[in-house]
């Protein structure tokens, strides 16, 4: 790569410049949209075209955020939701993978459980929210349980199908070496499924957000979901909008984190 950049023709330089220019224009267009969206929202409120009491307003959102921060509330709520989310998707992924291992280990078990998994997968897990509250109680454990519940079934199905798709020939090689079933799991099934598990993890981050926010809507006394629901009830739309924006930022950051993790784990796939 280094040599290439030193010995480039004019034509290639032109090409690189065109690509960079295009990227730059995309970035400018993105920022412009954001800028005008915020600006028109702000001005429309200021000139009475919309009612900021109902639609809120960028300046009021900013003020709300600053107030939350001054009161020491901002990071408290963010932290609670983020921690619930992390516990949710990590344990959802681990539990799902463990169950997938059990299904791989015993094809009898996997055949027996198949219809149950299909039904559970089709069921909107949020419907089980009230049951969780009754069983687990009115607090964070219920919220985490909601997040796990929402991600675990799809993890089982994805990871198990990843296990089953591992090349038979690779397993055959291990068998000719005299490998035990545990060694087959450890040496080929699990390592070959790392990409599948990481992609399940990536999906679960998103699902877990849904579980946590819904859980907080139902039971909580703190967290971003709580702020949203509370803001809605007392008609403080500034609070609702501010919380949604923080939520969007936190979700995007976490997703980027997963993308980085995926890249570092798949070093061996490329050159």
């Amino acid at each position, binding site marked *: 790569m280094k040599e290439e950049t030193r010995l480039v023709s004019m034509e290639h330089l032109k090409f690189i410049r065109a690509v960079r220019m295009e990227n730059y224009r995309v970035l400018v267009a993105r920022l412009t949209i954001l800028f005008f969206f915020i600006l028109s929202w702000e001005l429309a409120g200021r000139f009475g075209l919309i009612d900021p009491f109902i639609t809120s307003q960028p300046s009021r959102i900013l003020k709300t955020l600053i107030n939350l921060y001054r009161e020491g509330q901002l990071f408290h709520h963010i932290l609670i939701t983020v921690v619930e989310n992390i516990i949710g998707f990590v344990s959802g992924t681990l539990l799902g993978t463990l169950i997938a291992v059990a299904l791989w280990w015993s094809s009898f078990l996997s055949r027996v459980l198949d219809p149950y998994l299909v039904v559970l997968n089709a069921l909107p897990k949020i419907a089980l929210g009230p049951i969780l509250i009754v069983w687990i109680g009115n607090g964070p454990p219920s919220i985490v349980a909601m997040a796990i519940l929402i991600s675990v079934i799809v993890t089982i199905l994805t990871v198990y199908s990843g296990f089953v798709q591992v090349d038979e020939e690779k397993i055959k090689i291990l068998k000719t*070496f*005299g490998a035990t079933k545990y060694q087959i799991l450890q040496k080929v099934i699990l390592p070959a499924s790392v990409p599948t598990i990481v992609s399940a993890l990536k999906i679960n981050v998103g699902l877990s957000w849904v579980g946590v926010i819904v859980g907080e809507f139902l039971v909580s006394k703190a967290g971003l979901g709580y702020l949203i629901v509370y803001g809605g009830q007392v008609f403080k739309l500034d609070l609702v909008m501010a919380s949604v924006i923080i939520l969007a930022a936190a979700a995007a950051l976490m997703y980027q984190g997963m993308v980085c993790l995926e890249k570092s784990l798949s070093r061996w796939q490329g050159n």
Partner: protein
Amino acid sequence: MESRVIVDVRNLTMKYHTLAGETAALNNLSLQVREGEFVSIIGPSGCGKSTLLSLICGLLSPSGGNILVDGETVQGPNPKIGYMPQRDQLFPWRNILMNVTLGLEVQNKLNEKTRSNAKDLLVKYGLGDFLYHYPAQLSGGMRQRVALIRTLAIDPEILILDEPFSALDYQTRLSVSDEVKRIINNEKKTTILVTHDIAEAISISDRIVVLTKRPADIKNIHDIALSCDDISPIRRRECPEFRHYFNLLWKELEVK
């Protein structure tokens, strides 16, 4: 001088069962392979060649008959047998050295000594610069060589090669089969190769076993004696008798 029989297949019968019925894959097949021999098995596609290999490797149990390897009945995977698959099947998440030590690891034989033996094998056969590379960074031919060394690393007495060159392009295929033959000759291993390429079989083997169509039995066995006594499969292809064998085998395999 006759060397001892190392693989003795006796009246082997194999049937596959499905709900729709049973299919006979092998029918009372008997075959002997002597120590140090290079034997190729050819036959029409789907005739049961791979079944025969799986049985010798101990991955399937026969419906009838038995197989003796080094005088002992095959009852499961056997460290005396090394299997090399059609595609290299290197594990992409392991570097080359770790791919080669896979068998040792599984057999709990990995220690300083065996690891350095594996390293020596890689160095000896021109892969010394790639010990810590990943398979994706190697060419198809090199990967196939690594696959062979992975099989050799557990020091088997018999090598079972299941169409090891069929996934390679023609050019690579010729040079890889040359290398593989040289390595096997160096390491003095008994080899059973399955292929459907007649020219490849003649160029590389001491003996060729032709199977009938399914259920497979032995149709004929040819000793290959070429006047140019060379080990290189590429040069063996230039021998005057090569065409004679080719025509003979081609007619035998002809679909009727």
